[in-house]
Structures are given as structure tokens and as C-alpha cells.
């Protein structure tokens, strides 16, 4: 049965009480970038900020989803409420997607302290990194202590999301080629924690050694922030390495209590601000009525594309606009 549209502001209280339907609906609207939801996101932002946000990234097939499922179990055992945002790429051809990360997390579904949400990257349309951080705030409002974001470590948006968490984990796996894949993908340096997954495999030692050597050679990353990223071997099949991983999170969180944490939060906020501004500008720009007439003038060679474009940009940035 159809029901009337519930304004986003009215969803805040039920979401804050942890009512899943309201949390889920707010997320859909944030993901779609609906202008209507922005005022609510603004309210939610003021009330959020308590959760520990963990980004987990690595190439497809490196074992992230399986690892997340094991990790969540550990966090639940420690009494935490955990939300997972699993991001998979959209098809560049159709814009659609098949989101299958949930399959690996099936064991967790009925636990009342777990919330799992799948998101697609939307390809070049952009704005998804921005939406993902709104989603994090909604989950934070709903009382989740740990929010885990799984993203594929290729593509700018995905890497930016991983970077925008408090603690970033880069997963490398044996058996996916003899290089550390994170090097090729250019994401090794964003790691606060390194994981070598699938350590039940005999070739995992080699991956561990290679990675440690590369880190010694200074290819590592977080060092500049006064933190030495540990390398942790895990096996999701044998349930190994997860105590070390959870301990790594606790230590990194403690590290963030200091000045490093302040810097990190500011850096994330600057990123969000930029993304929010980009989204608004794109939206205004795309709906600017001067494209048609200016396009005609460009076609008639009365003006050139750059002059016309800078005219449009100037015009809309001086116009009084509000969200």
C-alpha cells in the first residue's frame, strides 16, 4: 500500500531511536542527493561525530568482504554496534550494478546490532564520495559505534572515501600477481593499517615479506603523521589475525586522541566541504538557463567555448543562491 512522503526532517527522530526503516530511507535520499534531505543532513551532522569510521580498501578479490564479516563478528563480541557500507562499482555501460558484498556477510544479517548497506559508485556522475560521508553521519546518529566502509581500491572516489575515514586499512592478498597490488593502485600510502589477507595460503609469507620490505624502503605512508602503520596477517578462513586487527584499531584510535586526530578531522572536513560545494555547483551549473543561448552563440562562432563558459560560471557564482 502506498504511503505519503515523509519529510526527511521527520525521519531524524525515528532514525536516532535506531528504527531501521527510517535510517534506511534517509540513506536512500542522501545517496540520491535529493535537495530535500539536505536540511536534515545538516541537523544530523550536528548530532553526529561519536562513531569510529574505518575505511577498508584493496583491489577486487583481495578478501575485503569476507574479512569485514569476520571483523564485525569480533566487534560484536566486544559489545559494539556495527554498521557496514559496502561500495561496489557501477557498470560503466548501463550505470546499473550488481551488489554482492552482502553474500559474504550473510551470517550477520539477523544480529540486531548490525546494519549492512550496499552502495554503487555511480561511475563518472560523481558526488558519491560526498553521499557516502552523509551516510556515515546518518549511521552515527543511529548509534552505531563502528562504521566500516568497504571500497574497491581503484578509482578516485573510492580511494577518497577510504581516506576520509578515521582509520584506513589497505588489504593486500597473495595470489593476485607477484607485485603488492596496492602499489600498482597507488593506495599503499593511505594505509594506517596494512592487512595481508588469506594467510592460510602458502604464498602469503612472500606477500608479507614483500610488503614489509617496501614499507622499510619508505613506500609506506602514515609515518609522517607520527604513526607507524603495522602489518597484520589475517586469514578469514582460519579466523586468524583478527584480535591483532581489532587491537590495531584501538591503538590507532588512541593515537587520534592527540593532535594527529585533530588534523585528521580537519582534513576530512575540508574534503567534505569541497565535495559538498562541488555537488552544489554542478547542480546549479547544470540547470543554468544560459547554456542553450550561449551554445548557439558558440556554434555561430560569435564567441568561443572558454569565454562563454567563464561568463556562465561568473554569472552563477554571483547570483544569490541558497540550498
Amino acid at each position, binding site marked *: 500500500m502506498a504511503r505519503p512522503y515523509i519529510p526527511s526532517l521527520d525521519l531524524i527522530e525515528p532514525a536516532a531511536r535506531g528504527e*531501521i526503516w527510517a535510517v*534506511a530511507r534517509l540513506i536512500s535520499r542522501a545517496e540520491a542527493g535529493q535537495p530535500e534531505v539536505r536540511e536534515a543532513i545538516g541537523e544530523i551532522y550536528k548530532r553526529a561525530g561519536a562513531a569510529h569510521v574505518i575505511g577498508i580498501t584493496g583491489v577486487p578479490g583481495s578478501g575485503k568482504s569476507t574479512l569485514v564479516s569476520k571483523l564485525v563478528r569480533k566487534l560484536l563480541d566486544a559489545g559494539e554496534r556495527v554498521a557496514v557500507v559496502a561500495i561496489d562499482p557501477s557498470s560503466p555501460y548501463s550505470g*546499473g550494478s*550488481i*551488489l554482492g558484498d552482502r553474500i559474504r556477510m*550473510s551470517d550477520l544479517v539477523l544480529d540486531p546490532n548490525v546494519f*549492512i548497506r550496499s552502495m554503487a559508485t555511480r561511475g563518472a556522475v560523481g558526488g558519491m564520495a560526498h553521499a557516502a560521508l552523509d551516510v556515515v553521519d546518518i549511521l552515527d546518529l543511529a548509534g552505531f559505534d563502528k562504521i566500516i566502509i568497504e571500497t574497491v581500491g581503484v578509482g578516485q572516489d573510492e580511494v577518497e572515501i577510504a581516506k576520509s575515514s578515521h582509520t584506513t586499512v589497505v588489504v593486500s592478498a597473495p595470489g593476485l600477481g607477484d607485485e603488492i597490488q596496492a602499489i600498482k593502485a597507488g593506495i599503499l600510502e593511505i594505509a594506517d593499517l596494512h592487512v595481508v589477507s588469506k594467510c592460510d595460503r602458502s604464498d602469503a609469507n612472500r606477500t608479507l615479506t614483500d610488503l614489509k620490505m617496501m614499507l622499510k624502503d619508505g613506500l609506506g605512508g602514515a609515518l609522517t603523521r607520527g604513526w607507524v602503520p603495522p602489518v597484520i596477517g589475517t586469514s578469514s578462513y582460519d579466523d586468524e589475525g583478527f584480535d591483532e586487527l581489532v587491537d590495531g584499531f584501538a591503538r590507532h584510535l588512541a593515537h587520534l586522541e592527540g593532535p594527529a586526530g585533530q588534523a585528521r578531522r580537519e582534513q576530512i572536513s575540508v574534503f567534505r566541504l569541497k565535495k559538498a560545494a562541488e555537488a552544489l555547483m554542478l547542480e546549479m551549473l547544470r540547470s543554468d538557463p544560459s547554456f542553450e543561448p550561449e551554445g548557439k552563440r558558440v556554434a555561430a562562432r560569435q564567441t568561443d567555448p572558454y569565454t562563454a563558459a567563464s561568463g556562465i560560471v561568473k554569472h552563477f557564482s554571483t547570483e544569490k543562491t541558497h540550498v
Partner: protein
Amino acid sequence: MSAPIRVLLAKVGLDGHDRGVKVVARTLRDAGMDVVYTGLHRTPEEVVTAAVQEDVDVLGVSLLSGVQMTVFPKIFALLEQHKVGDMIVIAGGVMPDEDVEELKKMGVAEVLLQDTPPQQIINTLTSLVEARGAR
């Protein structure tokens, strides 16, 4: 720009026939929809919980094992319980005509059986979601 239609496709119970559901998943993805697939052997509780968390426009259940008359009443009761009685539910797979009629009375919006052409599946979902309107 409107958001893609979100669909959750589920297989419930011991039914191991997953060719059809995978065909449907690809068809809908290629039509630009976001498709969450839960994998085989889920319970109605798991399927509904996932559908609520994913806030899908359409919950699609694929059944070729003959248990539709026990599964769908459970699904509708659970949807009510989760305060999402308005979710669009559709069914597909192999089932007799008399069950199809009963299922529709129960609230299943559409039942798409063997040999349904891809375009018909796409059109059915699109028009159901359009008819529902913004949410």
C-alpha cells in the same frame, strides 16, 4: 537526475535453482538498476531484514521449489513488522497458475514465470516503481 531503481533479489529456503535469478540480476543491472543479491538459501527473516536495510524499491523473490504459499505470507507479515508494508514485492520462477492468483490477492504485485522476456521484466519493475511515486 533521479536515482536508479534499487532491487533486492532473493532465493529462499532449500531452492538451489539460481540460473533464473542471475539472469534477472544481469538484466536489471543492464537496464541501469542497482541490484542487491543475497545468494542462495536465505530465510524470509534474512531476506526482509536485508530489504529493509537496503531500502529497496522492489523485493523480488525467486522460487522454483514449490514453497511459495508458505514463504510469501511470512514475507508480508515480516514487512509489516518492520514498518515497510509499502514495499513492492514481486515473484518469479516456477509455480502453478492457481498459486499465482492467490499470491496476487496476498499482495504480490506481479508474478513473472519461465520464459519471461527480459524487456518485460524491466518494464514491469519500472512501471510498478513509477506508479508508486516518490518516497
